[in-house]
């Protein structure tokens, strides 16, 4: 049987590496990426938490040729595009006091910590939403165009975009399904601001729903769809699920 070789690119929504502080014996990978793998896809994920769309796009340009299907997660446009690869996970424009408390930052040596702080400080001064939106919009176009030209199946996932903010993208030129507006589900399930105990910011139950939707999309020959994840998909919400992840955080 024809097996899908799937390349996954993106930020924390495509990162299956769990923060070690939330790992406990017996905890398995609950990500939607694992769901796809369990369904028989061969997957290579280049996702990394905290990175920008430009980071994912550069990886996509290098690696897309090795896959017959791509899942491209578009990060929030406000992240720092020009972060050196070594510090790519700090591309969220943190305020320096928050950054200093993060465990990944604290694991850096003193010199590197200073470099990251200088970069973040400079990037905050250069922050420009018009510029950032221009970059992300053209990345989205290019990913669709390249996959179309090379006949690679594609799903784009834009967790941070709402129906209104999707207007900046050219959605008439879709090559594959475009899923957007995942953030309301993330927050409805668990109100997190900085540190999340869930894989890809979703419970195991909702990762399964997302993974199954993606599997169905990759195996479909229907015309590409624009799917508002906050309306068109029935994610599950239950206090016992929320409590499970809350407990991990408070531990």
């Amino acid at each position, binding site marked *: 049987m024809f097996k899908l070789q799937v390349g996954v690119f993106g930020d924390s929504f495509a990162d299956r590496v769990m923060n070690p502080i939330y790992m406990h014996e017996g905890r398995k990978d609950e990500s939607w990426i694992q769901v796809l793998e369990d369904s028989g896809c061969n997957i290579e994920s280049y996702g990394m938490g905290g990175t920008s769309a*430009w980071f994912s796009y550069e990886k996509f340009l290098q690696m897309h040729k090795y896959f017959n299907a791509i899942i491209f997660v578009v990060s929030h446009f406000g992240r720092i*595009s*020009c972060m050196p690869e070594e510090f790519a996970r700090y591309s969220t424009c943190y305020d320096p006091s928050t950054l200093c408390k993060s465990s990944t930052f604290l694991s850096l040596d003193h010199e590197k910590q200073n*470099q990251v702080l200088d*970069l973040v400080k400079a*990037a905050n001064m250069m922050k420009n939403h018009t*510029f950032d939106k221009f*970059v992300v919009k053209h990345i989205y176009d290019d990913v669709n165009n390249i996959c179309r030209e090379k006949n690679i199946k594609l799903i784009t996932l834009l967790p941070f975009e709402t129906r209104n903010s999707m207007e900046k993208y050219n959605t008439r030129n879709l090559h594959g399904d475009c899923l957007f507006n995942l953030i309301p589900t993330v927050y409805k399930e668990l109100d997190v601001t900085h540190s999340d105990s869930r894989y890809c910011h979703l419970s195991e139950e909702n990762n399964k729903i997302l993974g199954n939707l993606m599997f169905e999309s990759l195996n479909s020959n229907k015309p590409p769809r624009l799917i508002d994840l906050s309306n068109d998909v029935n994610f599950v919400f239950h206090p016992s699920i929320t409590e499970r992840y809350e407990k991990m955080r408070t531990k």
Partner: protein
Amino acid sequence: MNIGVFGDSFAFEMIHGSYPQANNESWMHIIRKSGYKVKSYAMGGTSTWFSYKLFLRFYHHYDQIVFCYSSPNRIPNMPEGLESFSNFHGSEHQLNNNEIFQRLPDHTRNELLTILKVQPMMLDTQLNSFLVQNIFNSVNQICKQNNKPIVNILPFENMDSMDYSARTGDVFVDLLTVSCQEWPGLHKLGIPDPRYCHLSLENNLVLSRLITKSLESRRRNIVDTVNCGDFIYNKKITKRYEEMAYERKG
């Protein structure tokens, strides 16, 4: 005809403050003298993003457009007021002697120093080339939609370094090489270029003719300025500018 010009030092009508006596020899001034109305929004040392923002704001005021794309080795999104430092790679001493830097308020100076400190780490040529390509596509598309003839000048690119298929007017590439061939020893002097738009008066005249001809004909050619045979290389001309530079150097 009303021409709007956008770009960096290759389209900048002012010369470095160290050469206050120089007459305006820019190709824009020459075009103006032949009866066109020309307004330039260009500023030396800026990025293509800087020019694009101004283009989006003002292109509708003009019948014809000349867009000059900067080097991809520049920081694209410098904060307002610091755009002309997109390309600054000099020492602290050079910065302190910079006329624009001297006029900045203290907090803006500190802002610039913070950015320049990390500039080598933040410079991403691939990102900048991606920007130049997409800005090129967008500018040409907008001009086509609004029926405005356009000339694209890409001093830092060659025939193969970009995809020019979205062009809706002529494309002139590699003007930087023309500038360097005219005066190969300039970079060794370590002083600002006394030539308007990095070209002698004679070559500004050549460029002005190429631009007006192109705007009138509405062609879509890609012209390699190094090999087109129009530009003039003459030691006497170079010497004229060398003398200006030596005079300044003392």
